[in-house]
């Protein structure tokens, strides 16, 4: 029996454990496995294999009972998930259902989650813009949060590393605030978008730019991606179903199969992490305690190094729940700041309008991206009564439609031969930086637990006065830019959405130079427990304005290489 136990412990021992198989965890796993490190990946959800587990990927519109629409029942049962734009009939099986995974909203917070192998990398919007030192230097320059312990030069080679492997389409724009990367050919801006680009140049010189957004889609270097079994993006725009071409980057299509091919990866699915095991005698973390999602049995796995990539808020939850005599308030939480300084991106506002020019033109085909405004506000110096600024999406389009006023044969002929074109409509949405604050935080419930005996997460995150001022400024500035470009019928909106729906929640386990005011060092190790690394959204000291996934991927790859130095 004793031997059996030793064998069992041996079978449960790896060199590295990665918690989470999504955007950042799959990158840690890929780097570790590729370099010979025996790695266990723990995923709380079910397996989703590339191609095999994309049940809707090739379904035609008429094969969906409600032609893509959500039913009342789905909406009623999932008030949070159904507010996400991608939660529709074709992709709802990849989203967490509200009832199954409750959390406590001390203030309204739409927590959008994907519990399966690949996580939200199946569902993301695939926008990948680099940070620059205008972003990393933000907290130090403007006096909020704490100084980032790294700068652009530390992460630049890792951006290149992940861009090359993931496949990023874009143009070299030469902007210091949005550095160029390893780009495959860019998609095309349309005639109205190009017109707007020129108008900006005319009206604002070199201070404001609208560029083609860089996106994680394969558009060239095809032989290289063939090694991953991925081919060129077909512009289907059905990405959220899982792509049979592997045209966009997902963990399922790219990093995980790559890691698996090495023979060094073990995947443990349906395993809900309870906590990280801390050994006081050894003074380090030694493993991970999980609860089997189906049998609810507890199991332990052991490793020399542990990566926590459970997605920002769940990473906070796991660390908060990892208590010991040494760390009574959560692993590595000597500063008492674990779970605090959570922030997000403000997506509340949008501006739309019409353009009367180019009536003789339209567009054809598909495109998985659109235009992008890098931040221009407060870029070189403080110029407004609020801190920081916003990026924005931008696109123009028009559609062919039928006059549906009649009935009978008149209507039938008209809808079969649609003869009308809408005016060009143009639209923009803001992506505002929010300022991390101690009061925006997450904590464990002391009385409520989930079906696996793990305390529910209490989320207490809200907008502040800075965000309100920024919404107003975005609306004013975008309106002005639209007016100067001759756009008409300009409408501004503020949909008052709750934080969270941006799906860019960040922080709680922030990086910093000083263990008294931060949790992680410059290499993503917990200051007080350095064999534990955090490289997902939880590590973010500030949020800046760029879609954050690319930065998490680069962080994960960089930290994996740091960990390997210590393993060898």
């Amino acid at each position, binding site marked *: 029996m004793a031997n059996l136990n030793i064998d069992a412990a041996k079978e449960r021992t790896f060199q590295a454990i990665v918690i989470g198989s999504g955007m950042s965890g799959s990158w840690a796993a890929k780097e570790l496995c590729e370099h010979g490190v025996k790695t266990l990946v723990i995923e709380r959800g079910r397996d989703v294999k590339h191609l095999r587990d994309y049940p809707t990927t*090739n379904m*035609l*519109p*008429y094969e969906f*009972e*409600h*032609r893509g*629409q*959500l*039913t*009342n*029942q789905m909406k009623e049962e999932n008030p949070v998930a159904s507010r996400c734009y991608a939660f529709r009939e074709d992709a709802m099986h990849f989203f967490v259902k509200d009832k199954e995974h409750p959390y406590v909203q001390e203030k309204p917070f739409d927590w959008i989650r994907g519990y399966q192998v690949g996580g939200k990398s199946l569902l993301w919007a695939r926008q990948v813009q680099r940070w620059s030192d205008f972003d990393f230097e933000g907290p130090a320059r403007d006096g909020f949060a704490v100084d980032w312990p790294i700068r652009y030069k530390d992460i630049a080679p890792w951006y290149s590393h992940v861009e090359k492997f993931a496949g990023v389409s874009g143009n070299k724009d030469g902007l210091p605030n949005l550095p160029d990367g390893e780009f495959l050919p860019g*998609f*095309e*801006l*349309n*005639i109205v*978008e*190009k017109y707007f680009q020129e108008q900006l140049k005319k009206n604002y010189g070199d201070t404001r730019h609208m560029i083609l957004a860089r996106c994680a889609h394969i558009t060239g270097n095809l032989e290289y991606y063939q090694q991953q079994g991925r081919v060129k993006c*077909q*512009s*289907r*725009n*059905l990405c959220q179903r899982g792509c049979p071409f592997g045209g966009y980057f997902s963990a399922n299509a790219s990093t995980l199969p790559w890691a698996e091919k090495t023979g060094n990866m073990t995947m443990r699915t349906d395993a809900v992490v309870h906590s990280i095991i801390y050994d006081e005698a050894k003074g380090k973390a030694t493993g991970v305690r999980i609860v089997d999602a189906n049998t609810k049995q507890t199991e332990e796995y052991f490793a020399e190094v542990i990566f926590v990539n459970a997605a920002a808020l769940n990473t906070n939850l796991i660390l908060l729940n990892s208590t010991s005599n040494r760390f009574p308030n959560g692993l590595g939480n000597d500063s008492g700041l674990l779970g605090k300084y959570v922030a997000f991106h403000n997506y509340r506002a949008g501006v739309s309008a019409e353009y009367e020019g180019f009536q*003789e*033109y*339209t*567009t*054809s*085909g*598909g*495109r998985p991206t659109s235009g992008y405004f890098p931040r221009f506000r407060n870029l070189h110096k403080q110029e407004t009564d609020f801190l920081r600024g916003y990026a924005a999406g931008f696109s123009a389009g028009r559609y062919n439609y039928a006059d*549906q006023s009649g*009935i*009978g*044969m008149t*209507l*039938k*002929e008209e*809808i*079969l*031969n649609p003869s009308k*074109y809408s005016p060009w409509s143009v639209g923009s949405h803001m992506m505002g930086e929010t300022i991390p604050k101690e009061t925006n935080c997450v904590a464990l419930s002391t009385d409520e637990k989930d079906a696996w005996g793990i305390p529910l997460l209490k989320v207490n995150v809200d907008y502040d006065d800075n965000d309100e001022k920024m919404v107003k400024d975005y609306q004013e500035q975008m309106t002005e830019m639209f007016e100067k470009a001759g756009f008409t019928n300009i409408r501004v909106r503020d949909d008052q959405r709750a934080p969270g729906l941006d799906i860019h929640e960040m922080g709680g386990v922030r990086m910093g130079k000083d263990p008294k005011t931060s949790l992680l060092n410059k290499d993503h190790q917990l200051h007080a427990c350095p064999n534990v690394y955090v490289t997902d959204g939880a590590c973010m000291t500030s949020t800046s304005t760029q879609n954050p996934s690319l930065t998490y991927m680069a962080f994960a790859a960089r930290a994996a290489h740091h960990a390997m130095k210590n393993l060898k």
Partner: protein
Amino acid sequence: MHRREALKSLAILSGGAVLVPSCNFETEDILAAYQNLNVTESMREVLAQIADTIIPPGSLKGASDLAVQDFILVMVNDCIETDQQRVFTKGLQSFNTFSKKVANSSFSKLEQAEQEKVVAQGLSISNESTDEDEKTILEFLRLTKRFTIQGFMMSEYIMTQVKPYSLIPGEYNGAVLISSISTMKIDG
């Protein structure tokens, strides 16, 4: 169509149509597949005739050839607000009364041209009408028209045989001259 498929197979097993007793003293039973609506088989037939009036058969199939009436019932039953569901059921129930009022005949007994007049008249009821019954007919016909068009255009028949749909739309072209697009006229 899982639920309806299941009901269909249940019907085969039980050797007949699956119907639940009506609770409003009608002689006819209501269709169990649409649990949020009080719809009988004869109401479903009227709906099919209205759908065919909106999109009639011609050189191409019409709405009821594609069972658009069932699509309408699915969408109304599953996807619209409860108060709209009530208006829909009420409008469908009272549609023959409306037809008798404006054309002196139940809807199914009218010639196609007459049917078209009745539906057109119903759709031309003013938004500002204060007559509850008229408003109900207007709302009912608007919903029916909307789902008839959607059900017809997004049917397998149209999307495979008439205007083949491709999951791959082709590479993006951001400046296409509309005058350069050649389209073949499709006869209804």
